């Protein structure tokens, strides 16, 4: 559909079309794991890696298996199976070859299977009809964008521990409102680049 270069899509996926702040994907772990910068960095890295790889995998499977066989309506179940299998593989691989990395990322990997940003990115890639190169740019950008957003919120929440928040708004509600402000700030990037 679009002839936008992969580089533009990459930048747009981080800033103007941030998968979290404009498409609201991956909110559950975003709210739950944004207490500390260290944790959120670990989760962000894991999400970026898995998101990029599964987007590529799902692109190949969709265009070379599902479309020729006319099984497009099964895309949801195939995508989620691919994601679950991939996460499992990565977990075993990391555990075997890099115990240190496993301890750093290990606990996050199972969480990622149910992170809707991963499945969402694959679905967006299909809906927006990206080419192979564009999909790589989009997957990488979306992952990095997600990581940037969660690290930013973690930094803000660390500071917020010292502020005086009305009781009903403590915890999740205030995190939500702060995310709103963050989203507003990211709207400032609008117009820089744009993708559909």
């Amino acid at each position: 559909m679009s002839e936008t270069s992969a580089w533009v899509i990459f930048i747009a996926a981080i800033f103007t079309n941030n998968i979290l702040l404009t498409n609201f994907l991956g909110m559950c772990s975003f709210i739950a794991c944004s207490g500390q910068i260290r944790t959120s960095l670990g989760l962000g890295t894991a999400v970026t890696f898995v998101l990029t790889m599964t987007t590529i995998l799902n692109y190949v499977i969709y265009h070379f298996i599902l479309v020729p066989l006319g099984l497009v309506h099964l895309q949801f179940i195939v995508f989620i199976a691919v994601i679950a299998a991939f996460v499992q593989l990565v977990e075993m691989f990391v555990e075997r070859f890099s115990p240190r990395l496993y301890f750093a990322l290990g606990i996050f990997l199972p969480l990622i299977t149910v992170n809707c940003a991963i499945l969402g990115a694959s679905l967006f890639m299909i809906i927006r009809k990206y080419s192979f190169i564009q999909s790589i740019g989009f997957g990488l950008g979306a992952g990095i964008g997600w990581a940037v957003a969660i690290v930013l919120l973690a930094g803000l929440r660390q500071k917020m521990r010292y502020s005086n928040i009305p009781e009903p708004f403590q915890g999740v509600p205030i995190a939500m409102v702060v995310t709103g402000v963050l989203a507003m700030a990211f709207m400032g990037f609008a117009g820089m680049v744009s993708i559909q």
Partner: protein
Amino acid sequence: MADKQLACMTCSPRGLCGGKGLLTLKDGAWTNNPLAIQILGICSALAVTNRLENSLVMGAALIFVCVGSNLLVSLLRKRTPHRIRMIAEVAIIATFVILFDQFLKAFYWDMSKQLGPYVGLIITNCIVMGRAEAFALQNPPVLSIVDGVANGLGYAVVLAIIGFFRELLGAGEIFGYEVLSGQWYTPNQLMILAPGAFFALGIVIGIFNTVKGPEPEEKKQ
């Protein structure tokens, strides 16, 4: 929560289990509202609520999927090996999501276009999975249906509240009809855009926290 489930297991699978069915209904829809109290499944709650119509369709989708998957998981609960129950649940949920998605595509193409990937994302909606795992695996089919309806309703109602205010304040319209006249009300575009969604949900959760008591009361922000 735990003692309530024990009580439910002892009653007969037929009927609404006396008062237990009502208790389950209230628990899912209000006391333990999946969205506002347990903060589950917020992705779609933020994404599709820019119009009331979208919110209602999404709520209906979740009720359908939740009831269907709860029923099936509950029916198969004695035959499913414990170790593969997760993947079985995901497969069941995905089946119902595909059904709903195909239904939308066949009869309401415009709506399907507007909701985009968010219908498919019901698969990763923690509410459905959570109910299958926490309730349907231990309870008889009829009660599981009640639980599915209750949680779906709890989700749908909150979605409708958010959708109502976002469309009203953001576009001055309800269901596309002008309510707040353009002569004296300037639509606040921000409510339709992403930040408005975060603000609205944050405020709704805050209000739920405040009035979480006897009377359900939805207030304006």
